[in-house]
Structures are given as structure tokens and as C-alpha cells.
């Protein structure tokens, strides 16, 4: 066999080893961070199936070093054994879950409606309210983001008491709408600015009114942005704890408040706490996995001009 004439230089082989080492480092970092991100979730889910001795021995892998048991879910009333049985804990949990769902979905919807209108107006027309022009109005809305919730918390406590809105879902919905409105406006403004004006001009020439063009032409195009804004608002409102802890007590209490009140009561009831936490994060983990595209789109809106 004749000797190979064209072959890599010695130094190129070294280069290859270096490239390989680089790849290993990159995937090493990626895997490490994946473990950091996912381990707490894994830990919580597995702990909800453990018994006390398993927790103390630090067993981690189901069916390998411990047998999964329904104990934690029994205490929540959500397990095969207790499905049919009446359970006060489950009732309580479902009530909090419904509260959270209703409050976060309606607040996000309201914020998306109000925010889209505002963002569209600001991106298309010229306004003058007194000394305020478009950039000032934009700033007025976006600056709400700086406002820390604690500034509004105590005044709202007093105002809601006077208005009999304390411990009602409506009260929470209004407040949550306010907290996510600036974010929605930010995302939607970006969205509308990327839609060419010629579309509306054509629609207006064809006889649609300004609002007609907005609803029938622009909104369908801006739908992905609206979904992104909606999902992001949903995440923020579902997880909100501070206002809910201050403004609700019995009727309108949301899921985070329930989780927090269970943590406070001592005597580490690991399995039931783990089950409760798992149930509380479950909806958002699903949303995160399925709708990841939209969340990223929403957060990227402000980054790229």
C-alpha cells in the first residue's frame, strides 16, 4: 500500500485534541447547569413519594433505594386510595387552586387587553395630554415597573378595607393587572412597531375604521406577541405571594399563600409538603415545557430593538 501523500500536519492533530477538550468542557458545563436547574424539581417530586426513613437515609432513586409510597399524596387527598373519599384537605387545595387559576388568568387577560390597546395607540398615533407627549406617556406606563409592591401594599390594605374588596378575587385581579400591565405594554409595543403601517393604510382605504382595522387586521398578526405577553403575565401572577398574603385571608386565598402557611407550621411533614409543592408548581412546569417558545419570545422583546 502506497504511503499517503496528503495527510494532516502534526500540529493539526493537537488542534483536534484541543477541540475535543473544548467540547467536553462545554457539554460538562451544560450538564452541570441542567442538574442544578432540575435537581430541586426532581427532589421535590420524589420526596412526595417517600416515607420518613427514606428522607432520613437520603434515598434518591425510586425503585432503586426506596419504594414509592402514596403517603404524601394521601395527606393531600389526591391519591388512588382517596379519590372516592371525601377529603377536607383536597377541598381546601382545590379551592386555592381555583382561586389562583381564576385570579391569574383574568388578571393576565385584562392586562393583555388594556396593554395591547395602549401599546397600539402609542405606536400609531400622536397624543398630547397636557405637557405629556408620546414618549412621556410611554415612560409613564413603563415607570410603573419601578414601583415596589410594598409602597402600594399598605394603602391598598386600607382602601380595600373601606371598599369591602379585602379578601375578594376582584381586588386581587385588579392589583395583579396593575403589576403586569407595564410588561405587557412593553412587549406589545415592540410587537406593533414591527408590523408595517401600510397594512392599516390599505384597510382604511378599503373602508374600515381605525378600530375595525385594529381588531380585524392587526390583532391576528400580533397574536403571537399577545400569547407571549399573556403567558409571561400568567407566570408572574400565578406565583405572586406578597399581595396575596396581605390582602386575602379565607375566601380568596391563593395557592402560594396556602403553601407558605403550611411551611410555617413546624414538625417537618416532608412528604405532604413535597406533594403540595409539586402540585403547586406542576401547572407552570407544564406551561414552561410546552410553551417555552412564547416565553422566550416575550422576554426577548425588550432585548432586541
Amino acid at each position, binding site marked *: 500500500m502506497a504511503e499517503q501523500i496528503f495527510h494532516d500536519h502534526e500540529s493539526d492533530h493537537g488542534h483536534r485534541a484541543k477541540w475535543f477538550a473544548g467540547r467536553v468542557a462545554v457539554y460538562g458545563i451544560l450538564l452541570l447547569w441542567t442538574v442544578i436547574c432540575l435537581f430541586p424539581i426532581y427532589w421535590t417530586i420524589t420526596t412526595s413519594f417517600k416515607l420518613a426513613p427514606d428522607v432520613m437515609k437520603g434515598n434518591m432513586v425510586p425503585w432503586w433505594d426506596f419504594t414509592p409510597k402514596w403517603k404524601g399524596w394521601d395527606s393531600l387527598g389526591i391519591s388512588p386510595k382517596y379519590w372516592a373519599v371525601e377529603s377536607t384537605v383536597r377541598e381546601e387545595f382545590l379551592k386555592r387552586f381555583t382561586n389562583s387559576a381564576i385570579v391569574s388568568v383574568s388578571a393576565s387577560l385584562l392586562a393583555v387587553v388594556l396593554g395591547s390597546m395602549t401599546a397600539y395607540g402609542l405606536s400609531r398615533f400622536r397624543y398630547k395630554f397636557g405637557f405629556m407627549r408620546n414618549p412621556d406617556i410611554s415612560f409613564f406606563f413603563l415607570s410603573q415597573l419601578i414601583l415596589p409592591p410594598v409602597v402600594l401594599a*399598605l394603602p391598598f390594605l386600607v382602601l380595600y378595607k373601606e371598599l369591602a374588596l379585602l379578601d375578594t378575587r376582584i381586588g386581587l385581579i385588579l392589583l395583579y393587572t396593575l403589576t403586569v400591565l407595564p410588561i405587557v405594554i412593553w412587549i406589545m409595543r415592540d410587537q406593533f412597531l414591527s408590523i408595517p403601517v401600510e397594512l392599516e393604510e390599505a384597510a382604511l382605504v378599503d373602508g374600515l375604521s381605525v378600530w375595525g382595522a385594529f381588531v380585524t387586521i392587526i390583532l391576528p398578526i400580533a397574536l403571537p406577541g399577545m400569547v407571549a405577553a399573556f403567558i409571561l403575565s400568567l407566570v408572574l401572577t400565578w406565583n405572586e405571594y406578597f399581595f396575596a*398574603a396581605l390582602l386575602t385571608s379565607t375566601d380568596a386565598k391563593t395557592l402560594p399563600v396556602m403553601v407558605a402557611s403550611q411551611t410555617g407550621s413546624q414538625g417537618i411533614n416532608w412528604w405532604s*409538603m413535597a406533594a403540595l409543592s409539586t402540585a403547586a408548581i406542576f401547572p407552570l412546569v407544564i406551561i414552561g415545557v410546552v410553551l417555552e417558545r412564547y416565553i422566550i419570545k416575550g*422576554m426577548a422583546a425588550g*432585548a432586541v430593538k
Partner: protein
Amino acid sequence: MSAEGDLLHVVTSDQIGPARERLGRGLIWGSFGVMVLAFVYCTLADNGALGLELTNWRPALYGYLIWATCFCIAQVVLYGEQGKRRLFLLPATLFVVAMVIFPLIFALGIAFSNWNLSSLEGRSFNGWDNARQAWGDPFYWNALKNMVYYTLAILVEYTIAFGLALILASQIRARKLFRVAFLLPLMLSPVAVSWMVGKSMMEARFGPLARLGRELGWDRPSFFGDPEIARATIMVMDAWTFIPFMMIMILAGLQAIPKEVQEAAKVDGANGWRGFWEVTFPLMLPVSLTAILIRIIFKLKLADIIINVTSGGPGGATDSVTSFIFREYRDRSNVGYGTFLAILYLVLIVLAITAFMKAVDRWMNPRY
């Protein structure tokens, strides 16, 4: 953004007759009268002048709603096409005014009074007493100092987030999978995180992190005993949930950089480290600053984890301003003092952020 405004310029011939104008003005002032009447009724009933027991101030709220609705309708009646455009902004504006401006003014009133919600006395104006009390309150200043530490931790978060974003933007397999995994911490509620990480994984005896600590030679791992360590732990937990947020923003910025720029730099001999510092990093500055600014804003609201894991302890070492005011209210239910502290915090934040933005502006657009 200069592209804003007056893009859709339409000339319309609206003929607003005098009757229509009267109708519009009538609507505004009529509903305004209704609102004023509702307010007067509530005030009088509250003072007991009508001999009625005032159950709540709902009538005043309904009055405002009626006025707001009529005001919106009247815009179209009065100004035709122009009014329809105002309608895009009006609902949100009226909402924000009712929910922010009005409570803020109300808060200023509360801030200068002594008002214990659990006592029957009600509110009494006490001038600058709250200010004097705040000035001499070591725990409040301690909480403010903690906020500075917490905010400084953002630089570390930023570095990690940038590194991860660089890796995610490079040529790797299963990018989507990693992206989903990295995003998940952001989806979890801080309250659940406080239990999952703070209370169970860091539990001194059985928690996996404590076990890991023992393996690595830390004989009595305690994450919340020592003030410094407790503060660092809180920072880590908060960073864990929010690094994905910065990472995604930076990733979006990285993907928006045209490939040609980096290729040109490579041709010119800037590879690896130098290519990053002299090309990628400067190009990423605007995005980085936006990400950091938003992260600062979110950081200043930090409370949930602290309230649920340490409730400020040990000895106020982990307190953020929000969690401190929360406990102050929970323990003493003094609305007046708490509100004063909150307003002071707001003023400090606005000053700090304005200064930050001015400095950034000066740095980004130097005037020679």
C-alpha cells in the same frame, strides 16, 4: 424609539354639531356630578351626619366607574375620529390613575400619621414623628444595606447568565432541550422554591445539600446560622430563579448580532477571548444594560423567599426592605410607619435608578 407616533395619519371630516357637543359635555359633567354626589354621600355617612351606618365606600367606587365610562364615550361624541384614537389609551390611563396615582396620594397621607389598624382609635396625624423614628431605626437601615449587597450580587448573576447564553448560542446539540431545562427555575413560584430549596434541600440533617456539604468536608453545615452565609444563601436562591431571565435576554441579543461581524473579526485575527472582548461584548452592551436594569428592578422587590425561609433572621441579616416592612406590619399592624418606610424606599429607588440611567447614558454617549 423615534418611530413612535403619528404613523397612521388620516384626515377626517368630522362635523360635530352643537347638539352633539352639548350631549358630550353633558355626559362628562353629568357623570362627574354623580361621582361627586357618591363621594359626598359616603363622606357624610361616614361622619354620621345622615344618621346612616356606612357599610363601605363602594358607592364612591361605582361613581368613579360610571364617570370613567361616560368620559370614554363622551370622547367619541365630542371629538369623533380623534376621540376614537384617544379611546386606545384612555382605559389604561384611567385604570392606572385609579390604581397608582390615587393610592400614592393616599399613601402620602398615611405616611405622616400614626395609624394602628388593630386598635380602635383610628388615624391620627403625627407630622414628622415617623421620619424621626425611621431615622433611628437600625433595622431599616440594615435592610437598606442588605439591598445594596443583594443588588451587587446581580453582577455575578450577569456573568453566569452571559456565560450560559454564550454556550447556548454556540454550535451545540440538543439546544432546545437545554433551553427548556434552563428556563424551568423561572417558572417556579418563589414560595415553592423556599420550601423546595431553602427548607428541605438545605435542611441541616437530611437535606441533600447539607449531605453534599458534609461530603465536601464542611462538618456542621448550616445555611442560615451565620449572617454572612445566610445572606449568601438567599442570594443563591434568588439567583437560581432569575438567572434564566437574564440568560434569555442576553441569548436573544447574541442571536441578533449579524454573523458577518464575527466572521470579519475572525478574518482579522481576533479569535476566542479577544474576539469576545473586542467584538461581541461591546455589541452586547445595550442589551446587557437593559437586562441588568430590569433585573435590578425585580431585585428591589425581593421578599417572598426571605419571608418564607428566614423571615429576616438571623438578627435581620437577610432582611430586604420589603420583607422588613411586611414583618413590621404583621407584628405591630402600624400602617402609618410602614407606609412611611415604603415611601422613603420608593424615593431612594427612584433617585438611585435615575442616577444609574444617567450614568449609563453619559457612558454610552460620551459628549466630548
